[in-house]
């Protein structure tokens, strides 16, 4: 048991995170400084968590989707829709809780739409969710009529920038969601059933699992997560920027899940590892920010780090580093 915990602690992910943090520290010696100011924690590490929260939340939903062998490209657009909905409603005078509820509903609805396309119409997930990826941002802009809707509603702002027990709200929300989602999938049968559907959807049906309902639920959950992330991002800048909110974040979310070790081919998944993946990505982004490199280098650095992590995770490096017998797995792929 102890060795299992230990072997988890030295997974490629934790090694990657440690490496990225170390580099950040070398580039910027104050990186690990944390101070207590105005009743909340401050520091680059906190920033990493705070800025990583939206992608982490997306990654939670995305993990479930990917575990079923799917993918959801629409989450960025759904974020924009949720942010736009909440902002426009509070600006129109609705109470914040109504606005939040409607925004969440909008996310659920988008998820349901995706789920119907994937589960019932049997459309391939990439293409099915591409529809909202394209149209969703348009819908968000339709809601805001193309402008950035600035608001001053304290509740919405609190979601994005408030703090609880000294931690930024986004971190609190992401952590809570991660823990709840993990409990939900591991304390119930959901985790196993989702994995079963991802490993073999046909066999799942034969085993009496309501695979379609489960698929629907998973996409709905992903939409829900995206809506939360969307409100955080809007609350953070006190405005709904329909054109830019969540732009390309679907790629970061997928990347986080893959870095976390969940296979794009479905099956075994770990929500906490995906969250760790999101933190690694953000640590890298923050590192780029504090490094002082010219911005032209951002993407090159980012790809370098990703390649490094992939190499660390690949079976090839396992055989190289751990000297396990080199088995040719041609037929068991």
């Amino acid at each position, binding site marked *: 048991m102890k060795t299992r915990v230990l072997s988890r602690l030295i997974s490629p992910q934790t090694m990657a995170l440690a490496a990225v943090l170390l580099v950040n520290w070398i580039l910027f010696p104050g990186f690990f400084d944390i101070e207590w100011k105005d009743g909340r924690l401050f520091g680059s590490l906190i920033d990493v968590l705070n800025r990583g929260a939206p992608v982490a939340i997306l990654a939670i939903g995305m993990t479930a989707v990917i575990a079923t062998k799917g993918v959801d490209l629409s989450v960025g657009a759904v974020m924009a829709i949720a942010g736009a909905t909440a902002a426009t409603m509070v600006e129109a005078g609705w109470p914040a809780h109504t606005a939040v509820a409607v925004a969440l509903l909008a996310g659920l609805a988008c998820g349901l739409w995706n789920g119907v396309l994937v589960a019932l119409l049997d459309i391939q997930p990439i293409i099915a969710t591409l529809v909202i990826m394209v149209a969703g941002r348009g819908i968000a802009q339709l809601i805001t009529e193309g402008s950035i809707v*600035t608001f001053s509603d304290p509740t919405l702002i609190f979601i994005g920038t408030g703090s609880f027990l000294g931690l930024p709200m986004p971190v609190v929300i992401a952590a809570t969601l991660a823990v709840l989602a993990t409990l939900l999938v591991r304390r119930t049968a959901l985790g196993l059933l989702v994995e079963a559907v991802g490993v073999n959807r046909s066999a799942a049906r034969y085993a009496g699992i309501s695979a379609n309902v489960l698929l629907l639920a998973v996409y709905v959950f992903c939409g829900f997560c995206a809506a939360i992330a969307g409100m955080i991002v809007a609350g953070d800048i006190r405005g709904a*920027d329909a*054109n*830019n909110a969540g732009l390309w974040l679907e790629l970061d979310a997928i990347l986080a899940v893959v870095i976390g070790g969940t296979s794009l081919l479905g099956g075994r998944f770990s929500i906490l590892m995906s969250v760790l993946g999101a933190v690694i990505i953000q640590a890298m982004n923050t590192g780029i920010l504090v490094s*002082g490199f010219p911005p*032209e280098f951002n993407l090159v650095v980012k790809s370098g780090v990703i390649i490094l992590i992939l190499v660390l995770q690949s079976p090839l490096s396992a055989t190289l580093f751990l000297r396990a017998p080199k088995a040719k797995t041609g037929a068991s792929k």
Partner: protein
Amino acid sequence: DGLQGKVVGFSQIGSESGWRAAETSVTKLQAEERGIDLKFADAQQKQENQIKAIRGFIAQGVDAILVAPVVATGWDAVLQEAKDANIPVILLDRGVDASEDLYLTSVASDQVKEGRVAGEWLVNTVGDKDCKIVELQGTVGSTPAINRKQGFEEAIAGKANLTIARSQTGDFTRSKGKEVMEGFIKAENGGKDICAVYAHNDDMAVGAIQAIKDAGLKPGTDILVVSIDAVPDIFAAMVAGEANATVELTPNMAGPAFDALDAYLNGGTVPEKFIITESKLYTPADNPQGEYDTRKGLGY
């Protein structure tokens, strides 16, 4: 009379910023006032879509074409095609690297000058004090980012007390502006070492202001904020004492463009090649509340 009933195609870049949204809505407004049938095409940030749109307009036989070019290069061929079809083209808000006889006129600001105006304001404001500046650049490689950086650097060149300590891209967006500013603050001694932030547009400045506040500092006082565009929200910040200066980029590029077109089509007057809009500096002394109110309805 006038441009009544004329068909004009407008190839817009996209809707990436508050300012751009305003330019679109002002253009539509201007067209409506003059009875122009405006064909609008949103290029979703892609030059290839703009070229497609222009060719589409040519194929439809429109009377004139407005284009806000996403990038300066790459227009010769399609502009030549428009010229061959005798359709006048007017450039809006950004210039191109093409032979001047390929377009009727260009209505744009001088982006280098915008940067310079911002820089000069800062130079005058800080005087001889040492001032570490952080810069929020626009999208890497975009013309306004390159020009505004250049203009600003020109203005502070030779002033040894002003240095750009850090410069990163904030992609012209609020959230990236905020995130990047947060990083800068951490990297510069909790923001205490930063004397001013220069943002290539107001959206990023608005994000930066929030980051400064979150760090427990006072934007506008502890850290000076200067940016470009003059969107309503930056005036709101000025009212709150949180922003210090903005250089106006008028969203009304279409007005002068239509005037020139009118004169050309109806009177045969060839307009001057470059109609440069004013790069007016606004500070809290310029009635920010009033500016806010007049701009609020323009679709920013």
